[in-house]
């Protein structure tokens, strides 16, 4: 049902589609994938935000927004993300299917056309992005970079990952640095634009209840006219274990955040399934070792969870703890890991983890964006499997395989975000 199909349109462009009549909308997206260039991240990161503001057809923000409202409030989204050591610039539009319109409008064609217009006919003045737009979107970008501090839980995880992966060329913020953003000029941004259209790998997605052929035709016709010379994306890279470190950073916070980064030892060739199950057993559900012990039994924190970050293969244990409990929570987390490594894994724990995983994989197919995201996250993988196929493989992982995977796990970084020194108990 939610089996994804792909066709190579040539010139580094792949069209993926998943059709399902249960949905009432169609989601179309375009993703530009390029290896992250440390110094040029901001040049590119600003592009999606410029694209969604105006284009030649809709030459100001208001006319574009009105157009989206006319399209029954079609949602337009810009995103900059990373996938391994690649920067991914994305634009997506989600609109009601033709069947549900009041006057039988051809929504799908119009949405596909609008998405393309935004990307291939941006609003330029004398061949350059306008200085005014660049200035405005520099602000957007720097606000996004700076706002990361607002959510302390997320900030601590990002910061820990950044510190961990830095030495191996990862952990870079795909938005770039504040300094890079501030230095951007219309010339630089326009050059980056042409380079992105020419050199990136392009992944187009259609997910919805309409006819994917409609979208494919619109996309294919347009891209045929682009000057393309695609460069390969940065291949899959897993984190290599190094020395164990400890970093404490201080901020005016009432509750400390503890993040433990653990290496899984996974190699690029390996499937991550056993490590994934180890992570679920350890801290992926409310019946996991960390939740039941660190939170429930010892009341050391409000949350304590673990997830395997892919493609890096790093396990991130994240917890919100009172300042005076940081050391105790840290020790208990490692003790739980060590118990798992020693083989402490009951049949019940295994069953529950498998069922939870199966449930979350089955749910993927019920959402347009979750489906797109699932497949997009896997484009670098040597084999791309459907959610059902992956769920089946995860379900076959045995207790022994989980314990073996756990035995390869090594603590790499203990990151604490805590209050000012004087406040510590």
């Amino acid at each position, binding site marked *: *049902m939610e089996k994804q199909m792909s066709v190579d349109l040539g010139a580094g462009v792949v069209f993926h589609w998943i059709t399902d*009549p*249960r949905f*009432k*909308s169609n989601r179309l997206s375009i993703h530009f994938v390029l290896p992250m260039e440390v110094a040029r991240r901001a040049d590119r990161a600003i592009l999606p*935000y410029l694209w969604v503001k105006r284009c030649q057809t809709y030459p100001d*923000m*208001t006319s574009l*927004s*009105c157009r*989206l*409202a*006319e399209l*029954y*409030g*079609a949602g337009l989204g810009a995103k900059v993300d990373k996938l391994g050591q690649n920067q991914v610039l994305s634009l997506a539009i*989600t609109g*009601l299917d033709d069947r*549900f319109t*009041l006057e039988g409008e051809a929504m799908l064609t119009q949405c596909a056309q609008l998405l393309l217009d935004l990307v291939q006919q941006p609003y330029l003045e004398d061949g350059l992005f306008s200085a*005014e737009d660049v200035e*405005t979107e520099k*602000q957007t970008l720097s*606000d996004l970079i*700076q*706002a990361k*501090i*607002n*959510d*302390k*839980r997320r900030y601590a995880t990002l910061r820990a990952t950044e510190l961990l992966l830095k030495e191996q060329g990862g952990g870079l913020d795909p938005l770039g640095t504040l300094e890079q953003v501030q230095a951007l000029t219309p010339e630089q941004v326009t050059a980056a634009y042409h380079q992105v259209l020419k050199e990136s790998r392009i992944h187009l997605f259609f997910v919805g209840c309409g006819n994917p052929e409609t979208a494919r035709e619109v996309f294919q016709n347009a891209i045929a006219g682009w000057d393309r010379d695609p460069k390969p994306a940065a291949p899959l890279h897993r984190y290599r274990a190094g020395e164990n470190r400890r970093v404490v950073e201080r*901020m*005016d*916070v*009432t*509750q400390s955040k503890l993040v433990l980064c653990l290496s899984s030892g996974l190699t690029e060739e390996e499937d991550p399934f056993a490590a994934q199950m180890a992570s679920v057993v350890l801290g992926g*559900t*409310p*019946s996991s070792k960390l939740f039941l012990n660190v939170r*429930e039994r010892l*009341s050391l*924190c*409000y*949350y304590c969870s673990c997830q395997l970050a892919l493609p890096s293969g790093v396990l991130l244990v994240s917890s919100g*703890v*009172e300042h005076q409990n940081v050391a105790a929570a840290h020790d208990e987390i490692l003790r739980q890991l060590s118990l798992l490594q020693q083989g402490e894994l009951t049949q019940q724990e295994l*069953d*529950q983890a*498998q*069922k*939870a*995983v*199966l*449930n*979350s994989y*089955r*749910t993927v197919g*019920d*959402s*347009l964006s979750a489906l797109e995201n699932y497949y997009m996250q896997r484009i670098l993988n040597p084999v791309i499997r459907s959610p059902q196929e992956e769920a089946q493989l995860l379900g076959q992982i045995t207790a022994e395989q989980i314990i073996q995977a756990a035995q390869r796990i090594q603590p790499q970084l203990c990151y604490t975000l805590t209050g000012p020194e004087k406040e510590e108990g």
Partner: protein
Amino acid sequence: MKWNEIREEKTGLCYYQGKHPSGLTVLLFPMEGYASSYALFGTNLGSVDQTFKRDTEREYTTVPHGVAHFLEHKMFEKEYGDAFTLFARTGASANAYTSFDRTCYLFSATDKLEENLGYLLDFVQEPYFTPQTVEKEQGIIGQEIKMYDDDPGWRVYFNLLGALYQKHPVRIDIAGTVESISHITSDLLYQCYYNFYNLNNMVLSVAGNLTVPQVEQVLQKHIKPVAPVTVERLAVEEPEEIAAPLVRQKLSVAIPLFQIGFKGRPLEGKEELRQELVDEILLEAIFGETSPFYRRLYQQGLINQTFESEVFSGRGYYALLFAGESRQPQEVQKQLLAELKQYPQGISEEAFLRCRRLMYGRQIQGFNSVENTASAMINAAFAGVGLFDALELLEQLTLEEVNARLPEIFRSDRCALSVIDPA
């Protein structure tokens, strides 16, 4: 059980409504082709329900702030252990939430719907509180409260509610305070439980992969009928005036966060829903992304893409809220108030039709998700309206009605600003 099929003709969307002999309202929305089902079992007890009595009692009882949320946490703890472990057997993902005017227990599952539904109904119908477990929970919730103390998005919101409301408990954090929850006892939890967790006050809403007979069978087996209880809430006499025009706090943020609110008069049922839709059109037309206001402030760098607005409503409270990040929050408020003067005749017909169309599209798109659908059903039930009433009312709205509302809701003397400044 007798079921009413409720169908929306234009879209063909359809759900079933039934009243179980126990008094429980049941709403079912089968969604063909979906793997998951999402179920919510809720009661209309929320953080604002502070003073109440049974209709058979003489005296009102006032409970400490945060009781509803505390009770929600404690419902998971049983003599046999944690109710989460039940769902762990099937792999369902269970959770719960407490809002200002309701508490809901929920799960999302792709397998064994009957079993999960049985667990959900059972664990919410079986309270188990002891002084020891209450004491332990005070520690855990205390940590949750502290976590929110560090959350600027949460603080800017509650500071605004504190500025808008003088007396209404909506001004207090849903979880209460470390001090208020220290007064909670197991007896108090039982008292709240037996008053509010009475099937007559409760709704079960399930959407997704299900059939009506499947759910009916579970209800027969798992509903434990009890004598109906009617609870009377002491109405809070909230003045129409705001408490304070401005409130500021410093926290670790890079860019100031702000919220602006306009206090309005709460209504009930369909009347309230109609008012909400009218106000949503006004918010969209005057301040939404299609408006000159949005474009101007965005280009001036006064707002960024986080700027948004919403209707905030529930039992005994109603306000329009704006939220965003800005280096000059007071200037945003000034321009927002000035913008209203640009509409002496109200919004144009073109803007009205455009916004209505946009709202129609968003309503329909909401039915893509089992979670949204189940949540929309329970929200509508607690608001005393039907799931498709919004679609029907949208069609009936007139430009005149929308424009007549404009001077009434956006009053500068009913407007408050909350700002979180960088520490």
